[in-house]
């Protein structure tokens, strides 16, 4: 047999990323405390400004997102809601009108007016409207037709298709079930056999893949786990295997990778971090074995994924993919590495003790990665240093940050302790409902609304 070259491309890329990240951390540690706290500050105003601009008009570089316009709405509106800001009433009205034009005559929402309805954009549109809240937004959703659309997308196998004639995968299952649950139209017909489809996608790694035979992936693992919880079949998953897998996707950089041996990427702060929020809740209702481990930790973990997308234009991509994770386009894999143990330890206050429940991941390390490596000071968040900001990453980095800040809490309604929030306490974001990824208050409003009607 030939022998292996000692440093693979993957490893080289990983080392480069680690160097970049560690340089940032080193610079940070050498700063006087006052500048450190500035560096850790969430640049709320700049983020809001960046986001609001996106809502009123995007540059021509956004062409490739044309089939994903409700996603842009969701990423931006949800980010703004996380920051506890509001959009002005006229813009809100326009958004509702725009989304109504995406709503198809036979139910569901399309990527833009005139296009076919699509499950992922339906999820994005419904989450956007829930995030806006209020009678007008919520009542603009035609639930009867939407239910018919979901039924049409249901495949005989139990899974869902993204759109008429489209692909069947875990993303489609999640978006369908999440929307149905949020709108209170989930029934046995929709649920039937979805669980078996998801189960067929859990791999021996422990995570869940997009379709049977594929490898485990952070975005799909979130989607699959959330779906199983929503349909009340989560016990049939191998939860301890899943926990093992996800725990080791956090790398030395503090952020998460999306698949085994890929580079870190800020958007997995939510896709992987959100899994912990779900597991934590399962733990408090039944004792899932809380400890994981598994695989190779060792390595450096890295991350990202590749999913989808294209990105073209400066911003990310997203595209199509929706929902899932992501965007990114990197080429190549990256690698791994090594990292021995130079974990840069961040936790000043690592609470090994009580406080509430200790999270299964290093929450402060992830917050540090998000704030120092993913945040652009003039607004917006990104995959990793060297990449550009975009709305997709802004949305999922902030969602992940919100999850982290509450990772010690068992009760979302009480504020976290200051030491659970890295940087100034003003960094604290609004809590989300982790199954749907909408801000908790907005979820509650929608819940009331759709239970009554």
């Amino acid at each position, binding site marked *: *047999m*030939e*022998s292996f070259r*000692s*440093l*693979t*491309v993957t*490893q080289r890329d990983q080392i480069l990323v680690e160097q970049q990240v560690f340089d940032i951390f080193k610079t940070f540690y050498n700063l006087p405390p006052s500048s450190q706290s500035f560096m850790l500050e969430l640049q709320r105003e700049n983020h809001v400004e960046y986001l609001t601009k996106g809502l009123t008009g995007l540059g*021509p570089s956004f*062409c490739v997102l*044309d*089939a994903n316009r409700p996603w842009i709405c969701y990423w931006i509106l949800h980010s703004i809601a996380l920051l506890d800001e509001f959009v002005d009433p006229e813009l809100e009205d326009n958004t509702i009108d725009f989304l109504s034009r995406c709503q198809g005559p036979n139910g569901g929402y*399309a*990527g833009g007016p*005139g296009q076919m309805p699509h499950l992922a954009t339906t999820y994005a549109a419904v989450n956007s409207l829930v995030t806006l809240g209020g009678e007008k937004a919520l009542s603009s959703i035609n639930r009867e037709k939407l239910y018919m659309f979901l039924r049409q997308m249901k495949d005989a196998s139990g899974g869902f298709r993204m759109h008429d*004639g*489209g692909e069947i995968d875990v993303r489609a299952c999640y978006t369908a079930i999440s929307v149905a*649950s949020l709108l*209170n139209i989930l029934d046995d017909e929709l649920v039937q056999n979805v669980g078996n489809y998801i189960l067929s996608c859990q791999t*021996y790694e422990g995570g869940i893949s*997009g379709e049977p035979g*594929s*490898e485990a992936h952070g975005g799909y693992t979130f989607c699959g786990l959330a779906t199983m*919880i*929503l349909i009340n079949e989560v*016990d*049939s998953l191998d939860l301890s295997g899943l926990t093992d897998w996800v*725990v080791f996707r956090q790398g030395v950089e503090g952020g998460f990778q999306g*698949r*085994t*041996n*890929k580079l870190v990427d800020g958007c997995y702060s939510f896709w992987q971090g959100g899994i912990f929020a779900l597991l934590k809740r399962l733990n408090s209702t039944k*004792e899932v074995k*809380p*400890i994981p*481990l598994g695989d*190779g*930790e*060792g*390595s450096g973990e890295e991350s990202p994924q*590749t*999913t*989808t*997308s*294209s*990105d073209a234009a400066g911003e990310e991509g997203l*595209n*199509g993919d929706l929902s899932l994770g992501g965007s990114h*386009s990197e080429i*190549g*894999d*990256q690698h791994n590495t090594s990292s021995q143990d130079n974990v840069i330890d961040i936790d000043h206050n690592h609470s090994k003790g*009580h406080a509430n*429940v200790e999270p299964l991941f290093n929450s402060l390390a992830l917050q540090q990665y998000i704030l120092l490596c993913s945040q652009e000071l003039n607004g917006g968040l990104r995959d990793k240093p060297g990449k*550009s900001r975009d709305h997709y990453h802004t949305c999922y980095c902030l969602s992940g940050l919100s999850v982290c800040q509450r990772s010690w809490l*068992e*009760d*979302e309604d009480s504020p976290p302790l200051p030491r659970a929030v890295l940087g100034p306490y003003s960094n604290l974001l609004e809590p989300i409902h982790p199954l749907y990824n909408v801000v908790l208050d907005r979820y*509650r409003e929608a*819940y009331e609304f759709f239970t009554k009607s």
Partner: protein
Amino acid sequence: MHGRPRKAPKPEEEAASVAKAQKLHALQTQFFSFHHNKIYTKEAVELSAKLLEINPESYTAWNYRKLAVEHYLSQPDCNPDWIKSFLDDELRVVENALRQNFKSYGAWHHRKWVISKGHSSIDNELRLLDKFQKADSRNFHAWNYRRFVAESMKRSEQDELKYTEDMIYKNFSNYSAWHNRSVLLSALFEKKAEGFLSKEKVLPEEYEFIHQAIFTDPDDQSGWFYHLWLLDQTVTTDSPLLASSWPGHGYDVFLVEDRCYNGSAFSPFTALHSDSGSFPIVLYFNQPVGGVSSSTVTVECGFNKNEDLLWKPLSASNSQTARVWVAHLKIPSSDLLSTVEVSVGHSKGIISTRGFEYSHPSMFSFKVHVQPMERDFSQVSVAESISLREENFKIYGSQSEESIINSFNQLSIKNGHESTASNWRSEALAKEIECFRELLSLMDCKIGKLTLARLLMAYDVMSYPFANKLVHSEEVLELCSDLMKLDPTHYQYYKDEHSMVLLQKVTSSKESLLQHCFQYKDSVSSAICGPICLRLNNLSLSRMGAFEKLLWVQMLDLSHNELQSIEGLEAMQLLSCLSLRNNKLRSLTALEPLRKLKLLRVLDISYNQIGDHSIDTTRYLCSSPLSHSVGSESNKDETVTSDVALIDNWEAFYIFKDFNLNQLEIVGNTIADEKFKSVLVKIMPKLKQLDGKLLG
């Protein structure tokens, strides 16, 4: 774009991109008009191609093209040449779109659609794949498509295996390639393809292969995952086995209708108190199975065939699969001695969750002696209080050694089937062990240590499946302790592993187990009242395990450990007395496994952390999918919903309502205030004693 430094655009660039957007807008408007009017002329179809080249995510345009192709194919004058040229066109459009975005779901999906029409050739598709897999060797769309093409165009798994090998030689960190290798090998094993009939030849070569990667860079995670898969392939037997049962083969079970055993007349290991004349039969499988029923398991008792015996799965969830199954057999009290024969799996139907049939039919038999009540009932019914205090225990063994050992021998597990470990499996493990010892002598490597610990445990279990020898347990315990220090972040995990190994060790021989067997003797009354108590206290256990060897236990002392969970304890169906004093249980729901223990009468959960971390159960409102099952169950009970105190304590209600406790200790938990205790008394009207106080 990712990876490129951003520069402010020059004015002329900006103008160009505005022009591009305008062009796209015009294209789109035109396209939608064609689409909505079902116009499939040549120009119209070409226009959609242009649109897709700019924006491959335009799924509506992909569907339009499918409609257009179907439209032409259904024309009466359609001929094979035409079809070919249409489909070629589609392939070309997809390829162009992929060049623009090789992660476009729509484009890959469209290509699958074209291929499923029977068009294109495998060479053509492999060429395309090669190009995209070179550009991004982790692109999961491409890997998915590759699996699709290989399957639908009948490319052999062996050829694909070779491809993964090439990819791995190019970059051994490419986990996608390793992953595909596991998928391909699984398929070959399943098909029993030539050269893959047995894993015996294949797996050792795979180990060889992965060693190269691991030794080249032990910190690369790709190889470790694949190694984990190999280990699983080596260790796991496909078909499920019966690991143990209660009663075991050859047992003499004494059913005593009276509380006190009056000394040594019966073996304390197998005497069981039973008011109703019924007792549990427990089957413990080595993996979760479904399909256990009176048709797959027959229980013969004298001339009675118990055809209506109801087998229930014991699992935390309500799923119909479990490792442990239980049925309750009732012996008529007129039969003072019966012989019971249980045969498992002589007819088909017991299937593991992975879909393998139980294929080692086994049979065990035991005798049941019924000891009718002799004493006056009133003497017994006075609530006897059990206190698991140090002074009440005597180490077992002061009595005649002989009889103890004999009764203990009955506990060892002997099932009809012999060890299924084939030699190559243990040989493969032995080789791996050697190899990892070598690796660790070269460098300190956490994952290497963890793997070695796993290998050693797997080796012990496989080599001595029923002999209970654990030659490596000391070494494994040391590795776990080491890892706790080396890798404090995952301390808890190693701690759990440590606990499991320790329990295996304690239960591995009768000598070591007897050291933990005590006789309970109430300091007040002089009679020996009760069976043997197994005391696993003060072992700093964070998890409980080795249940398959502890099915006989009726009194269990787990006090002064670090348990946060007692998952799996539901297997111990005979438990009547349990102490979990001084552990780290944090919530009432952690007690869920106890709901399945119908014989449990005395429970001590004092000095835990229940209530320290309040959980807001209204967090998700009632729509909480997480509380569905719980919520609906409790709603059925009218008495509850009418009582505010119980509504506020639904968790307590849910957990305790099924208990048949006589005695409960809950002091020393934040939750246990007077108000809460009064709720408990309401939930459990049969409770006679709470925190040492007799209830009126």
